């Protein structure tokens, strides 16, 4: 790794000043499970690494039925699945947090870092999109909010301007009779990068027999995570049925624009989107009905 400077700000203001002092030569460090590999391998370079783990707002998980869940951008995965509020209200997030990397990686890697790394295959992003998450960003010219589905702009690229920081991710409180699920396909049992991944979230009516709304998002089938608006909207107002789910899966497959690479082919990935959309919708429905 090339020589770097390192700083550990204690407040958001100090962090913003540090990031702004070096512009695009500053990199934010949360768990480091992507950044340190990239710096060492020469895929990214930086003059200044800004460790965000001492800034309180970036390391908090807070939940209230009114304002929902706020995940500090540097909070590691294990703290999500160890958090009783998250486990009780956001099992779709726990699905992701508990399958990213190894136990060792989950001790460091954060959802905020996964979002900012902006890999098309990021496992944390589809469930956040499905759950309507919003990214809270701060920079030298103030703060702004960006829906997670609009955050990534290309492989490894996103809406953050030089000097800007992701502070936290806010996810609305779950509606009554709602559920979510994330699944990915990998050829191994653990420790692999998604060939395709799908996150689905549904809201049912009080009877549990009809969709009120649904949101579906995909991983590893386009240059960015994909929000399948048409597929989710197609379910709104319909009775829960295999036919309705099949139609949503078909629409999700239309939104997949994958490439053929070492992990899978175009045809396989589009097929997987159909399979995983059906499965995640059915799992989300079960959770919405309180069946699991």
């Amino acid at each position: 790794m090339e020589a770097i400077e390192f700083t550990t700000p204690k407040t958001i203001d100090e962090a913003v000043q540090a990031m702004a002092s070096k512009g695009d030569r500053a990199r934010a460090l949360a768990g480091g499970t992507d950044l340190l590999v990239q710096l060492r391998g020469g895929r990214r370079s930086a003059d200044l690494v800004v460790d965000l783990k001492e800034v309180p707002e970036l390391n908090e998980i807070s939940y209230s039925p009114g304002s929902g869940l706020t995940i500090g951008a540097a909070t590691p995965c294990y703290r999500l699945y160890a958090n009783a509020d998250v486990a009780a209200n956001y099992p779709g997030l726990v699905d992701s947090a508990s399958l990213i990397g190894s136990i060792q990686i989950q001790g460091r890697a954060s959802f905020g870092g996964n979002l900012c790394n902006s890999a098309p295959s990021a496992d944390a992003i589809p469930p956040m999109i499905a759950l309507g998450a919003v990214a809270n960003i701060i920079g030298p010219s103030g703060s702004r909010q960006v829906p997670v589905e609009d955050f990534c702009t290309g492989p490894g690229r996103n809406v953050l301007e030089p000097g800007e920081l992701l502070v936290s991710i806010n996810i609305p409180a779950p509606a009554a009779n709602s559920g979510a699920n994330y699944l990915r396909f990998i050829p191994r049992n653990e420790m692999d990068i998604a060939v395709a991944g799908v996150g689905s979230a549904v809201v049912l009516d009080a009877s549990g027999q009809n969709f009120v709304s649904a949101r579906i998002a995909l991983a590893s089938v386009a240059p960015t995570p994909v929000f399948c608006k048409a597929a989710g909207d197609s379910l709104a107002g319909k009775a829960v049925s295999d036919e309705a789910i099949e139609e949503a899966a078909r629409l999700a497959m239309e939104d997949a624009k994958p490439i053929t690479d070492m992990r899978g082919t175009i045809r396989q990935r589009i097929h997987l989107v159909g399979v995983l959309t059906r499965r995640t919708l059915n799992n989300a429905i079960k959770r919405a009905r309180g069946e699991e």
Partner: protein
Amino acid sequence: MPGLVHVSTTINGNPTDFLCEPRQSLLEVLRDVLGMTGTKEGCNDGNCGACTVVFDGRIVTSCLVLGVEAQDKEITTIEGVATPEGLHPVQQAFLENAALQCGICTPGFIVATKALLDREPDADEGRIRHWLAGNLCRCTGYDKIVRAVLDAEDKMKA
């Protein structure tokens, strides 16, 4: 060119000070600065788990932690597992079950296994295999390792 940074930390219960460059990983600091070569370098990119240490209560791959991040932290390495009285039951079980061949992955497996059994003394085989998925072994085929972990559970309850 940034200079050396002074870091104060605790390793295996001992207050420890060292100097390192910000770019150096905790793994490099352990091995090259502090001479604690029990922790092994395998892939150096977080995939193999050979460099696993306990960092503030969680296992991490020390190749993906910067040495400067160790400031004010509590670290346990393989050197902190045995006691003056003898090997830890996990180490004894690995020996008795021949759960190692070349040995490069072994310190990482033992640190990871101890961290599991300290939390979950009754972890079943599925849980053990899941927990240890971040530790790669290219010799044993894993069965002897899993048997050793199950044996260590019995030893720790005895």
